[in-house]
Structure formats: C-alpha cells, structure tokens
C-alpha cells in the first residue's frame, strides 16, 4: 500500500463506523409500530384450547329461558345469521347444532359481538377462520340480543337431547 491508499482505507473504515452508528440512531428514528398487531395468545389462560373465554361450564349446561329463546330464534333469521348458518348442516359457516354444548356462554357472546377481535386473539376463532377462510361477520347485535340468540341455541340443543362436551 502506498500512502494515499492508507489514507483512503482509513477514511473508509471511519465512514463505515459512522454508518453503523447512524444505522443504530436511525432505528430509533423510524420508530417501531405500536399497537394494532395481532396477539397470537395461544398460551393464554383458559381451557386446554388456550382460549381465555372457553373455560368453565358449557352454555347449554343451564336450562334455556323459553321467552328469550323465542326472541333469539327470530333474531337468528332477521339479523342475517341464516345466510351462513343452519342447525343440522354446514353452510358458509359452521353447523350450529350443538354449539351451546361445545362452547361457553362467554365465548359465544364474544364471538357474536366482536368477531374481529376474536379472530385476532382467540385461538378457537382463529382456527375457525383458517378452516372457513372467513372471519365471521359482525351483524350489529346488542349484548342483550346476543344473549337471546344464545338462549335459542341452548333451547334447540336441549330439545335435541344433546349434552355438554368437554372443552378440547
């Protein structure tokens, strides 16, 4: 190496160091995204499924309220549910026969009222989204209306003589 080569090499080394230092600074400058990312909480507290909403007794373990169930049946057809769901066969969405014996009251309420969050955070809802290639639409039911629809599911399942099944 001649003298000039030494100078250039030294300058390059120094520049490289500066670039690295700058890159570190830049990482702070760009800022990491905060919030809004899906939480893959497969190990969240709850039943063996990992769902924090699906532990405890199944919804159908308690007796259905007939009056609420009647309202729920009507909501089931007027709120657009029947476009994708039936009891006894699978349409676009899962077959709902026995659903009150498979899921807890809390899980069903969350799935009806806030399916988008469930699809992001709840392992059961995520798995269903993967199976059906579709997140369940939110149909704008009120919390009371959701309870009535669940009573309708319970009523149907109890009439059919189904029994609660343990959470997977």
């Amino acid at each position, binding site marked *: 190496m001649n003298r000039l080569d030494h100078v250039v090499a030294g300058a390059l080394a120094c520049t490289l160091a500066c670039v690295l230092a700058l890159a570190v600074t830049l990482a702070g400058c760009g800022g990491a995204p905060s919030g*809004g990312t899906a939480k893959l909480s497969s190990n969240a507290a709850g039943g063996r499924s990992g769902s924090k909403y699906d532990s405890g007794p199944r919804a159908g373990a308690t007796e259905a309220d007939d009056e609420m169930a009647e309202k729920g049946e009507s909501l089931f057809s*007027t709120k657009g549910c029947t476009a994708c769901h039936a009891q006894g066969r699978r349409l*676009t969405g899962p077959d709902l026969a026995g659903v009150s014996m498979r899921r807890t009251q809390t899980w069903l309420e969350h799935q009806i009222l806030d399916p988008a969050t469930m699809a992001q955070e709840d392992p059961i809802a995520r798995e269903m989204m993967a199976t059906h290639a579709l997140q369940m639409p939110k*149909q704008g039911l009120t919390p009371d209306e959701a309870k009535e629809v669940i009573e309708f599911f319970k009523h149907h399942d109890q009439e059919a003589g189904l029994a609660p099944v343990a959470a997977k």
Partner: protein
Amino acid sequence: MKRWFTFAVAAVALAWLGMQVPGCATTGGGWRAAAEKVYVKPGEHDTYYGFLSGGHSGNIFVYGFPSCRYITTIPVFTPEPAVGYGYDEASKEMLGGRTWGDAHHPGLSETGGNYDGRWLFINDMVGARIARIDLKDFKTRQIFGPIPNLSAAHACPFPTPNTEYVFAASRFSVPVPNRPTKVEDYAKEFRGIIAGIKVAPTDGTMSMGFEILMPPFAWDLADAGKGPSAGWTFFTCYNSEAAFDSLEIKASQAEMDYIAAVDWRAAQKAVDEGKADMIGGAPVLDPAKVKGIVYLFPVPKSPHGVDVDPSGKYICASGKLQAEVSVFSYEKFAAAVAGAKFESEIQGVPVLRYEDVIEAKVPVGLGPLHTQFDDKGYAYTSLFLDSQIAKWKVGPPWDVVDKIDAYYSIGHLMASEGDTRNPTGDYVVALNKLSKDRYLNVGPTHPEAAQLIDLRGPKMELLYDFPTYLEPHYAQMIKAEKLKPITVYPLEENTHAHAIKRAEDARIERKGNRVDVYMLAVRTHFTPDIVRVNEGDDVYFHVTNLEQDDDIAHGFGIIWSNCNMQIEPGETKTMHWKAEKAGITPFYCSNFCSALHQEMQGFIEVNPRGTPVAALQRPEAKSAP
C-alpha cells in the same frame, strides 16, 4: 497531515449521509415547519373535511385538511360504474338520462348562518339542476330540475342562513317561455330568471318556490345575506349591455353592471298570494307588476363574486375588470330601499344610486374574483390576473395588509368555514385554474392545482401544494367534528320495497316476462346463485347486502353487460338486466370482500323462449360437503 485528511474525508461522508435522511436531518428550515403543519400521522384523522366541486366531471371530491389527502369522490351528476351510480334503477332514475353535469358551487346547509353538517347542495350549471347530498351517508339523494325557464344556473345554490332556500339564476338569457325568436331581438325578447327553491327543514327535500323575471343580463354569482341582512340574497351580473354577440368586447363596455337584491320572503309571499303567472310549470313573478321583491344597485366593471361578510353588514363585490373590491353597506341599502330613493327602473326593477349604497373601495389588485373571511376581521380576495390572494381589513381603514402568490391563476378560494357567521380562520385553499409545471408531467391534460395556506399567523403562509382532478370551482371546508356519518345501513331501517332480510325469503318471482330476483349477498355467496330465466325476460335483481360490518360492501356485476353496482352493508339496490340470448351468463362480486371473494359468483341460465318456468322459485337448501 495524514490524520487530518482522513478525518476530513470522513466528515464529508458523514455530512452527505445525514442529508440522505430527511426524517432525521437537523436542518430544513421553514419547509420542515410547514410540513409538520400538514402532517397527519398514519391512523390519525384530519380536522377538516373539504368538499371540492368537480366542475365538468360532474362530481364532488372529498379531501381531508390539513393533510390535503384525497379521500373519495361523491358521484352527483355523472354515472360512476365502480359504485354503480347511474347503473342501478334508483340512481338511473335520479339522473334522468343525463350523463354529465357541470358542478360548480357546493353549499353546506346552515343553521343560524353556520354549517350544521346535514346536507351539501351543488348546482349543475349547464343543466340548471341542484343536487342534495345527505352527509349522513355521503350519497346524492335528490336532483331537483331541470328548473323550468332557466338557461343554465351559475349563481347557484348558496343556501340561506337557516337553509330555507337555495337559489338558481340564469347564466344565459333566452326567451321566456322559450320560442322561435331572432337572436337580434335579444333586448326585447330575452329575459333572465332568478329562482328560489324551497328546502324542507326536516329532510332537505327541494321544491319550487318562486321565479322572478329579470332583465336579459348574465346572472353570475350569489350569496345570501346573514345577520342583519338575512332575508335577502344578492346576485351579480355582467352584460348589462345586453350584447348577444362578441361578448368579450361588447359586454365589457359599461362602467357599471348590477347587483340584484332579492327579498325572498316577499317573493314567496307574492307567489302564495297568487300574484305569479305559471310559465313552464313554475310560478313566475314579473317585477313590472309585483313591487317590493327585487332591487338593483350599480357595481363597477363586470362583477364576478359577491360575498357577504360574517357580520352581515357588508356586501363585497369583485369587479373583475377593475383592481378593487367594492364594499356596499347593507344599512345604506336598507335605508335607500325604505326611502324609495331610486334613480331609474329597468324592466320594472327599481335601481338604487351607487353613491347611496357604496361604503368602501379596497385596492386589492388585478382581476379580483371571490372573497372569503376569517375570525379576526380580515377578508381574503382571489386575484385571477395577479395570481395572488390579497388579505384586507374589513372596516376602516379598509387597507390591504398581505399578499401571497398562487400557482397559477387562482379562481375561487375556500377558507375554513369562511362564508359563515363564524369563520374558523385556520386555513384557506387556493383553487387554481392552471397547474403548468407544478407536478410530474402527465401530458397535455394537466391536473388542476390547489394550495393550502395557513391563516393563523399575521402573514399568510403557503403550507402545501396538491393536484386535483378536473375541475374544482368553489369548495367548502367544515370542521370534521360536525359530521357524524354512518358506517353501515342498519338492516332494521332498510325499507326498500324489495329488501329481504332472511335467507328463507330469497326467491325468484315471475309475472309474464318480468322476473324479480330477491337476492342476498353475504360473505361469500349470493342466494340464489343459480337464476333460471327465459330468453327475452326483463330481469330485476334486487340485491340486499346482509352484512353489518364496517367496510364490507359487495359488488354485483354481470358479464357481457353494462350492469354493475356496489351494495353497502344493510343496503338493497335493484339492477335491470335483459336476457337477450339463450345460454349461460355468469355474475360475480365485483368489489373485493374477503378471502373467498373469487368464489362469490353465480350463473344465470337463460332458457329458450317459452320454456315452462315456475312462477315462484326458491333456492334449494344446500349443505357444504
């Protein structure tokens, strides 16, 4: 020496690197400060909605400010295939067979002289029509007109302080009623018209109020009085020379043209008392026979804009061929009318003396067109020829305090709530007629240009420059918090005659050659998805989108046809399709909806003419395998 040289090279390299990183640069000066004033962080919202008229594209463009981000287009007078505006039966009927309009002046509804966020009106200048957009869903809900006897409506709609009326004045004069005439008989046979259109306070429905027969001048722009001047609407005109050819020369001869002041309560009362003649289906008042409804006062040099200041005390007119804004006093005007101090009468309309009504002349610059206001007592006038905005004091000493350049050839300008009783004084947008070299070159058809200017400091400050599609004229800027648009149509409020809300109601009904398909759309299917009809049938698809989730619209497009529409969550729309030829025709969801969007489709089976078909078909219940 060697070490010194090494450091020098490294320092230059580092400085160069620093310059490559705009976000982290420590220098930047005034533009960086300006950029921060228009920057809206990802996920955050602008503080103002801007509604820019689309000119001869016939639409309204919605922008967010201060970011100047284009948000959406509201189709108004022009079909828009993406959403099916002008394609589905209801919007097709509303357009009435017209496929273009010239949308000039958006006017937000007002209560007490301030924007109330209910409706947006806009004129179709060429068709003499006025549309009402409901700001609950940003949809055009009524197109009123063509207004009888009106030959194009430029001075339109300019709502009154409580949205009692919108107005329309004829840009061109023609014989009223129109009949075979020689153009040379212009002065004798041609007339202008000023129309007052009533607006229902409950739902904004427009209906005919009154028309006034006016001299054959070119009625140009308007503004409603407010505060003390509420009850009056002011209209400028040019061509008081009544020229009918070579207007650029002949209509610019006179020293003075006029403002017409219409007492719209008196005009409506006269119609209600039966003083109007029915012409072309409209009640028309003749000022030669009905007094006290309209007055003229002289304005120098072919005025264009007329704008009433926030106090309602001053009427500011821009004589486009003089370098001044003429400010008239409402108080003086009212006194002259009360004292019946008239210098003459033109075709029955009394003319006040200029000296009796003028208050001040503000030397703003060349080619003044329009004036808007802020909350600190200043006015902002666009100067077309100087390509500038002049800021001036409303009130003594009536002096110009600041000017800023516009790129290029500014027409209208829009200040934030700047034509109301209470302007907010935050921004003004220059709506420029030419963009020339401001953006990447896209060939000879240039976009228009607009500029966001900050009004909060003592001097106007240019913040941002953005292109717009053809061609914003006027615009309105309203605080975002005043609007509360819905995000879905609640299914329970859907009263469409052909809506279905239950899957079991999906069906196909046949009466003669008319087939009504009651169809639902939900991720990710149509029900029914097989539609059997016969050759020659008129098929009406009534599609209800059963979704209630935000932003899940479905499309309904039929291949080999002009049929396409978008159906919003909870909405029902009807599409007519003619079964021209026996065979199979697929249809599909044309608006991306979900992972299985591609699967959202169906077939129309067109059987030969006369094939026996049941009067009622219901889709078979299908299970997934």
